[in-house]
């Protein structure tokens, strides 16, 4: 009874907040629900025991993987809902459950997919015993908020130990820290086995190239990106699991990182029992989630937005757009709470390996000058005369994001694409300007 009232209040809050365009519509109702009944999530889950729950965690790729799974499941006739991208703390999960249940607290869906913030996963597992947990990767990200990668892994391991065999784990075999996670439940692994995606050397921002078992330096037979690859510890013998799922199907998504998201989604839906053919045709019709390689047409040009929120995701975005022969790029760096207030990480991005191939590099955002300095120092020194230390003539600096976008679009030839690489809050702003409406 209490929960029915909570659901009613939550739905009212949600409709008011969306009709008034207040924002936070995806977290407020849940926040209120949890403050009225802190066991709200637990009780709703219990009441809907036939609802299958999929949790997705990892630094990069949660939203895209969730959307891929949703697309595949819906294609085969299942009713699926997902929490809104970014609303991945307990309040976001509670909101999503509340908005998808009726007044009797009944959720008439077959699957609920929840992306969960790295730090919130142990908390979520106290409330929910999921049917599937997908763990994608762990990279350094917002150290001011999350703390260090090792701490997150430790907390995950403790939380996973408490699960029963009801939960199936789907793990990335190519991330040593993820592959090292163990528990009593069935585990399936996905990883890459395709030399086409091989990377010659490690990027600078690499976190986990030491054995999670014995701390020795890991040997990589193949590096795919960051610390992901076919690894082995020559000291204690711990190595990438042998039995892995490694055949990605094709989609419109570019970049090696998306190969992993596709593998995770394909493997999970295969375990669920969806046929290969059905998965294949579903992926053919996949439309990227907002800001994740989303393409927007404006004045006859295509603008592609690639969320680039930490060193690894920025490196992979750069690698993907370089392969797409990008010439005009716009980097937008903000330092708000969702971006991380510390922008030091841009110095861990390997701009040096990419910027020579671009014709125009525009920068904007709250921390536009930090980004401008980064690009200045990434540029090759032309000669030793003092004047030439002046920044790259390709660099355009815009304090105002509107101007940045307008001018970048204008300077993009009609048949070319403008690539925008923003941090999280910057991505929302960019979309708002391009589409003319707010998302959150």
């Amino acid at each position, binding site marked *: 009874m209490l929960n029915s009232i909570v659901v009613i209040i939550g739905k009212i809050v949600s409709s008011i907040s969306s009709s008034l365009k207040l924002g936070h519509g995806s977290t407020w109702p849940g926040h209120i629900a949890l403050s009225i009944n802190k066991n709200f999530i637990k009780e709703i889950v219990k009441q809907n025991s036939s609802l299958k729950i999929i949790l997705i965690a990892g630094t990069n790729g949660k939203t895209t993987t969730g959307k891929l799974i949703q697309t595949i499941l819906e294609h085969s006739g299942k009713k699926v809902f997902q929490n809104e991208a970014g609303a991945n703390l307990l309040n976001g999960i509670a909101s999503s459950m509340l908005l998808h249940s009726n007044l009797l607290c009944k959720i008439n869906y077959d699957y609920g997919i929840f992306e969960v913030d790295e730090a919130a996963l142990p908390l979520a597992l106290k409330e929910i015993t999921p049917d599937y947990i997908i763990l994608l990767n762990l990279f350094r990200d917002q150290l001011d908020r999350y703390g260090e990668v090792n701490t997150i892994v430790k907390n995950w391991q403790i939380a996973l130990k408490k699960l029963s065999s009801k939960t199936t784990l789907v793990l990335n075999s190519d991330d040593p820290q993820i592959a090292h996670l163990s528990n009593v439940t069935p585990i399936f692994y996905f990883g890459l086995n395709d030399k086409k995606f091989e990377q010659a050397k490690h990027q*600078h921002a690499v976190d986990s190239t*030491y054995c999670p078992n014995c701390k020795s330096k890991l040997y990589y037979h193949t590096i795919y990106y960051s610390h992901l690859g076919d690894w082995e510890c020559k000291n204690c013998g711990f190595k990438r699991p042998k039995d892995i799922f490694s055949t990605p199907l094709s989609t419109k998504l570019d970049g090696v990182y998306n190969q992993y998201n596709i593998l995770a989604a394909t493997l999970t839906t295969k375990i669920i029992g969806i046929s290969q053919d059905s998965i294949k045709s579903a992926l053919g019709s996949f439309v990227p989630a907002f800001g994740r390689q989303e393409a927007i047409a404006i004045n006859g040009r295509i603008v592609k937005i690639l969320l680039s929120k930490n060193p690894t995701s920025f490196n992979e975005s750069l690698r993907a757009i370089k392969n797409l022969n990008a010439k005009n790029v716009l980097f937008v760096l903000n330092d708000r709470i969702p971006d991380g*207030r510390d922008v*030091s*990480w841009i*110095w861990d991005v390997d701009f040096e390996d990419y910027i020579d191939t671009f014709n125009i590099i525009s920068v904007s955002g709250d921390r536009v000058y930090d980004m401008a*300095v*980064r690009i200045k*120092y990434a540029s090759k020194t032309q000669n030793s005369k003092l004047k030439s*230390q002046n920044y790259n003539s390709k660099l355009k600096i815009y304090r105002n994001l509107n101007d940045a976008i307008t001018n970048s679009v204008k300077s993009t030839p009609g048949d070319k694409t403008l690539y925008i690489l923003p941090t999280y809050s910057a991505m929302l702003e960019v979309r708002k300007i391009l589409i003319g409406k707010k998302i959150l």
Partner: protein
Amino acid sequence: MNYKLTIGWLYPELMSTYGDRGNIISLAKRCEWRNIEAEVRRLELGFKIEDLKKCDILFMGGAQDKQQSIVSHDFSTQKIKTLKRMIEDGIPGLYICGAYQFLGKYYKEADGTIIKGLGILDLYTESRGKNFKRLIGNIIIETRIKKLVGFENHGGRTYLGKNIKPLGTIVKGFGNNGDDKTEGAMYKNSFGSYLHGPILPKNPHFADLLIQLSLKKKYKQPFSLAKLEDTLEWKAHEAIANRLGIGL
């Protein structure tokens, strides 16, 4: 005459968590732009003492706990002795966050466990445990070479001994321990600090000080560096100062 500096980067893989590579890039570029050859020597796990001795400036960044324990094992008595001799001898160096703590006497964890440091600098660090907030945020300090800006993020509280001076005093932020208004430490030509950001790109005057000290030390004569065009660097610097409501 052709001038050359060898920049020694201690444990670039392990002690490098918060964009600290930017400090190396800043030093190298600012040398290059002045026609001073800069060689970056990466002193990875298992490096040879001979390589360390060849360096004219040293840099070491912060690390995660696990990485730091690997580095601890690699720092043999002989390596510690060499580093100590170089620091005592006035080889300029910059040691950020984890490296700064590591040069001190010890790090005391909340449960009382003592982790020995290299014992080169007269300072120690204490962790007060999970119930105490980490010291996180943009920071600005006053030093003898004008202000420095950066971003700090540390759980440990560092206290300086009698034989060492702070790098600066807090204008806005927490600094060494959040209590005594000091930030960082200086000893001869070595500097320890909690400032990320990274510290040198947005504080070009500090980068130049390190370069100048190294040249002076190496070539045994005073140096005045050619002025560079630093508009962008200072705008990035000012952006932090403005954010904290501090005029320059």
